[in-house]
């Protein structure tokens, strides 16, 4: 028996289920489980981890890492629960003053989160020219006036390409409020697009306590189980961050579920480029895997009514799942779903509600080792019609994501995968990887540590702009836990800026790499 510390536990805390999976260095899944998510989060994590550890037996000592993905931050924003109070400082006056911070937020959320805001002279133009000299005294006055706050969010004009001023202001705030003041800088959070980046930064600052509760839950369970393991959080681009980093950037956990699912599906199937569909009880989430990573959305995302622009996987959600209700008279599909009550309400399980699971079973899919009881002809017809509608919608969604390429494979994961037919127009192959039901937990377990950075420069200096952004992205990846010796650039995006005196380009670079091994992490 090996005594190597070579196992990783991936945990995915979803709204309904908490999945856990253990994989070894060779990528073999040694144990997996699905447990119910609990209100206190800790319970579900505890159930998931203890279940897979029990399956491992004495191999539990080989566990070196635990990686957690969660929708907790999203839920906190949507449910307005446990959020911290934030002071927002904008650097950019006299520019931007027509648009005060938190403009366009739902008023209840703004009221809950915002302790106060100030538009301070400072910021930079697109070419780095200062808009106005930084008003340091104005910042100090604002901090004195705003009183007790949990955190401070700072957003400076063009800070993604010129971050120095935000960094200086961060130091100034800590010097004024104390070294342990929680300060969040917008260039760490998102790209160009001031309001969206500022929104994301304020949300991030408001999520500190929420994130801390989850990190503590994970640390508690790991300690209870006596595991000598490093702990990480999954972020929404399919890479990992340390717990400290997750506490600093909780907003980056939003969207990590689909990202994990896509990464896990790619890993389990050995497919680096393809379409991934994760079929659950209520919805199917489709994404695209490009060179092993989720394709990112290019349009701003709305979270709890707040428009943000930090990176997110490009996900298409369809109201098609195993529990989706089929109208017994018309065969119409959804939008209702019996969700987790499928095991009591579905026809297959002795219930009275026709669902897509029943339709798939009628068509011959093996579901839970059960056979559909004989149905009246009308209901059987409705189920067949419903399944045809579901297949049409799945096909249209796959086509929408496939770049117009018919040669990409479709990787099917999730508990409702039997809804996807073996042949689908617009894809080369339908692949159903073993352990696909816990692809999201596997995705968390195999995630790399990553970082992203942006730089703006004239076209002629494009190469040096990429170099500058690459160095910053690598530094962020290493800060997130990547091994400095193996971290590499995995993506370079370029965008051109019009109305500049010389052709100007904005580059955005992502770096990622395997985690530094225990005891080998370079001191930062």
């Amino acid at each position: 028996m090996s005594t190597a510390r070579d196992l990783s536990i991936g945990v995915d805390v979803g709204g309904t289920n908490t999945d856990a999976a253990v994989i070894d260095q060779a990528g073999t899944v040694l144990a997996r489980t699905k447990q119910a998510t609990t209100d206190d989060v800790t319970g579900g994590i505890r159930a998931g981890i203890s279940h897979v550890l029990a399956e491992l037996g004495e191999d539990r000592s080989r566990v070196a890492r635990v990686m957690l993905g969660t929708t907790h931050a999203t839920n906190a924003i949507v449910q307005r629960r446990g959020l911290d109070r934030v002071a927002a400082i904008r650097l950019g006056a006299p520019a931007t003053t027509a648009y005060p911070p938190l403009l366009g937020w739902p008023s209840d959320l703004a009221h809950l989160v915002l302790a106060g805001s100030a538009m301070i002279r400072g910021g930079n133009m697109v070419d780095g020219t200062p808009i106005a000299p930084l008003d340091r005294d104005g910042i100090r006055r604002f901090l004195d006036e705003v009183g007790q706050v949990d955190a401070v969010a700072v957003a400076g004009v063009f800070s993604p390409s010129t971050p120095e001023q935000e960094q200086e202001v961060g130091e100034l705030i800590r010097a004024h409020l104390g070294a342990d003041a929680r300060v969040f800088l917008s260039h760490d959070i998102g790209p160009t697009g001031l309001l969206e980046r500022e929104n994301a930064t304020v949300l991030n600052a408001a999520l500190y306590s929420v994130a801390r509760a989850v990190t503590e839950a994970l640390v508690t369970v790991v300690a209870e189980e006596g595991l000598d393991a490093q702990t990480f959080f999954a972020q929404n681009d399919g890479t990992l961050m340390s717990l400290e980093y997750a506490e600093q950037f909780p907003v980056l956990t939003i969207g990590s579920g689909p990202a994990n699912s896509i990464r896990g599906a790619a890993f389990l199937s050995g497919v680096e480029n393809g379409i991934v569909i994760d079929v659950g009880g209520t919805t199917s989430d489709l994404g695209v895997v490009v060179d092993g990573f989720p394709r990112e959305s290019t349009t701003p995302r709305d979270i709890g009514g707040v428009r943000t622009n930090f990176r997110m996987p490009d996900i298409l959600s369809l109201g098609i799942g195993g529990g989706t209700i089929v109208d017994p008279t018309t065969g119409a599909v959804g939008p209702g779903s019996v969700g987790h009550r499928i095991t009591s309400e579905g026809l297959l399980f002795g219930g009275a509600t026709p669902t897509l699971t029943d339709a798939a079973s009628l068509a011959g899919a093996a579901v839970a080792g059960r056979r559909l009881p004989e149905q009246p002809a009308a209901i059987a017809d409705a189920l067949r019609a419903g399944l045809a509608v579901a297949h049409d919608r799945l096909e249209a969604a796959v086509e929408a994501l496939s770049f117009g390429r018919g040669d990409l494979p479709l990787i099917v994961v999730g508990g409702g995968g039997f809804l996807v037919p073996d042949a689908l127009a617009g894809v080369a192959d339908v692949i159903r990887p073993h352990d696909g039901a816990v692809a999201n937990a596997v995705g968390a377990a195999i995630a790399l540590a990553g970082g992203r950075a942006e730089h703006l420069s004239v076209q002629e200096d494009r190469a040096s702009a990429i170099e500058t952004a690459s160095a910053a992205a690598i530094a962020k990846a290493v800060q997130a836990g990547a091994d400095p010796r193996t971290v590499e650039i995995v993506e370079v995006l370029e965008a051109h800026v019009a109305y500049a005196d010389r052709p100007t380009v904005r580059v955005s670079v992502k770096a990622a790499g395997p985690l530094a091994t225990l005891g080998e992490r370079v001191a930062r």
Partner: protein
Amino acid sequence: MPQTAAPPRLTEVTADDIEALAAGTAVFGTGGGGSVYTSRIVVEQALRERGPVQLVTVDELTDDDTVILMSGIGAPTVGIEMLTAAEQVETLLRVSERAAGRPITTLMAAEIGGSNGVGPIGWASQLGLKVLDADGMGRAYPDAAMISMNVAGLPCDFAVLSDVIGNVSVLETVDLHWLERLARVLTIASGSICLGTHYPMTRETARGAVIEGTVSAAIRVGRALLAAAEPVSAIAEAMGGEILLTGKITDLDRRTETGFTRGSVTITGLGDDRGRVQSIELQNENLVVVEDGRVVVSVPDNVTLVDAETGHAITTEMLRFGQRVAVLAWPADPLWRSPRGLELAGPRAFGLDIDYTPFELGAR
């Protein structure tokens, strides 16, 4: 506007109209005009605080009224980061009134397409002015010379530019080509984004020189889009236009040249349009649609790409490989189809060696 039946006219714009106005101006943007979102939220806020803005026709202007165009100019990518200063519009109005020698009472959008179609409502609210239910393009165009008053032969007395820092410039140029050239240099020096006024007009000079009813039309199209179960066909109907193709973007070539986004986008048909391919030439806006080597639509006729599901318009800088889109086209205002209109904004004005044929006359 292409509609022949006179639709009900709006007499004011309220905060509740702005979502529809923004969605509509995005469609009218024909690929340009910048992001409407940022304008939308600030205009909504202004109207909630200060109440509706009065919308008037050219006929309703009095002898005491002076209209001026107010617009943003510059790079959309900079515009979403270095936002407008609160004092910028007051400064513009003060300097514009000094240059005009009389009070300005009414604002007009230079272009109804994109953020410049939404902005004037908020600026008018802030300044306590009326808004003319009209604009100078009926869409978005990249060049100051491509404006209806220029087609009508109306000279531009002066223009005022103000930047986020507080710098103000008054330009008295010999024509609009010089205005474009000088305004561009000033804008770049100001950090690639400015606000400006130009073309002071009276009731008499505005008549026949502006494209009327476009603010109402944009709100009407936006409402149709937001309310419809089938948004794309609802927009086509509201615009008096046509859906040319539904498909996905399978090729995209964009580059920045002399301050413009140029290139082309290829759309491969899906569903009923499977087997068809269209490519669109871009210069900030969508210029020409080509299918099987033949020109289907060209400027000054209008082409907008909208999301195939939601109907929301997609600007040229937001186009992405793999997006599902519908290609929408509708006829240009008759002013643009006149010899002078075609000289200023026909295919050759964009350096394209093709003849203009109105697209509904079977260019296909």
